[in-house]
């Protein structure tokens, strides 16, 4: 495109600044809100006049503790287990799709695609009924199983895309040297595939962490209710007090792991998202 003029340079810098503000403004707002004192919450200003920890105290040690802490534990446990199961299943599946010649590969990929466009709420109605009958309503397993419908398809697509880029000659070389398919897979491919598997796990975790529909429909108590659903049920410490501050503080806490993962692994996450979706 030739040399970039000073004016063009300034234009792209401004464009970059716009993106920066666009992406972070609502986040900055909720962080600001979480540090406002109750008196500040209604002053209609963007920034707090003085910083206070009172909202964090309320959800971690105070009145909203019994609502927030169990929900946080549920969210972490359920999202991690669902991620783990779907990445393990998807790993074997994607390896087979990328590498082995067997009838049904297309069928599996098409099924994954169909499942990923499935309206979650359509699954909720029968599950709500079934889970009540067989006792999975309001349990961890009762959320982990439906979460697989969210995390498994994207894991299969993303991982197959990663696996296709692995230099498979090395595996063939191992097989020529007398290793079975299984040995070649375990000794040669697994280490090469680890970064892709890891990226897939992060994306699957984001999706499970984000779920709201299953969370509010298939739980009723602290036993399994995840954070996004619990946020919707927050109330103030008295009926005259809006729970705005407590919700903001809780929102900031559940956002921290997400932001940390993004900061650490942005390059991989972008590669994972776009590989699975556009390039293959």
């Amino acid at each position: 495109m030739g040399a970039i003029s000073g004016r063009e340079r300034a234009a792209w810098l401004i464009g970059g600044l716009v993106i920066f503000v666009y992406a972070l403004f609502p986040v900055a707002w909720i962080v600001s809100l979480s540090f406002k004192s109750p008196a500040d919450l209604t002053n209609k200003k963007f920034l707090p006049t003085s910083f206070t920890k009172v909202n964090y105290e309320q959800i971690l040690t105070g009145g909203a503790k019994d609502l927030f802490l169990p929900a946080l534990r549920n969210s972490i446990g359920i999202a991690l287990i669902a991620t783990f199961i779907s990445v393990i299943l998807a790993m074997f599946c994607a390896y087979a799709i990328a590498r082995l010649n067997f009838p049904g590969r297309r069928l599996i990929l098409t099924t994954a695609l169909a499942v990923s466009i499935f309206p979650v709420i359509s699954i909720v109605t029968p599950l709500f009924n079934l889970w009540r009958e067989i006792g999975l309503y309001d349990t961890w397993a009762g959320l982990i199983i439906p979460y697989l419908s969210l995390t498994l398809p994207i894991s299969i697509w993303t991982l197959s895309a990663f696996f296709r880029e692995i230099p498979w000659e090395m595996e063939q070389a191992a097989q020529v040297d007398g290793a079975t398919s299984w040995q070649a897979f375990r000794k040669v491919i697994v280490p090469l595939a680890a970064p892709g598997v890891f990226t897939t796990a992060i994306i699957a975790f984001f999706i499970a962490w984000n779920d709201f529909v299953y969370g509010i429909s298939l739980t009723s108590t602290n036993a399994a209710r995840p954070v996004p659903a619990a946020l919707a049920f927050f109330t103030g410490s008295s009926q005259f007090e809006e729970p705005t501050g407590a919700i903001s503080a809780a929102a900031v806490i559940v956002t921290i792991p997400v932001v940390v993962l993004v900061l650490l692994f942005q390059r991989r996450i972008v590669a994972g998202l776009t590989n699975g979706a556009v390039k293959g």
Partner: protein
Amino acid sequence: MSTVTEPAPTQAAEPRRARTTDRARQERSLGWKLAGPAFVVMLAVTAYPIANALWLSLFDYRLTDPTNRRFVFLKNYVVILGDPIWWRAVGVTLLITVITVVVELVIGFGLALVMNKALSLIRPVLRTVILIPYAIITVVSAFAWQFAFSNTSGFVNDWFSFLPGISETTDWFGGFWSSLAVICASEIWKTTPFISLLLLAGLAQVPEEMQEAAQVDGATWWQRMYKVTIPNMKAAIMVAVLFRTLDAFRVFDNVFIMTAGAQGTETVSLLAYRQTITRVEIGMGSAVSVLLFLCVVLISFVFVKGFRINLAQARGEG
């Protein structure tokens, strides 16, 4: 992974070699041993529930009154399709879908252009920050936008009170159009990054030589955009639009948090939720779920046939 799955019988259509070698047979069996469990789980968590919903939708069945469960065949569907509540929900859902997808496509393309051309110094920063809205929980984003526009805690009324129609006391969630605007804004903020990342990947596939040739021939920036760039990334645009359309059509979290369907903002997903979970009308709720499912299938069908998208190819399976 000891679960062995029988190969699906319909897949036997693949031309069979006269003598299947041991190695090929072993590969085939290993293929299904490895891929089978994921396949079975996917079917179990979706096909079974939707079949079950189809069955339940034929009953008059209220959870609080299980003894009066009666088979009513298609009556639930007749009731729903004859009810303005359903059509209103469909209309609102379509409105949200069209507004958000169009706006996201425009903004997403702009962001992708900037990221594509941004100086190498700030590119990593941009790629990081753009992921933050994508990764943030929708419910958190919904609360952030709700609080910002709220007339008790929000700064929006204060900042924009110089505009006609906005004052300190403007109640954004008191009317249909203003509620819808905030719902759409939140949805757009959260999901545009996904579109723009797909478009960025599409931009990277536009051949540089064609751009240069067009420039040498004296084409303006707009001409290059319309004649070279956009036609070359048609596949990426279509995939982005299809996925976002299907996603937007299922909109739930934002609406639930901000209005819970008040001011006529109830979407189809919210209607299904209300019938099933709030009113425990399992039969009626199942029928709404099935209809929502059919809408999503219809949208996919229109996209795949109407715009001739080869999804598998677009996703790299060509």
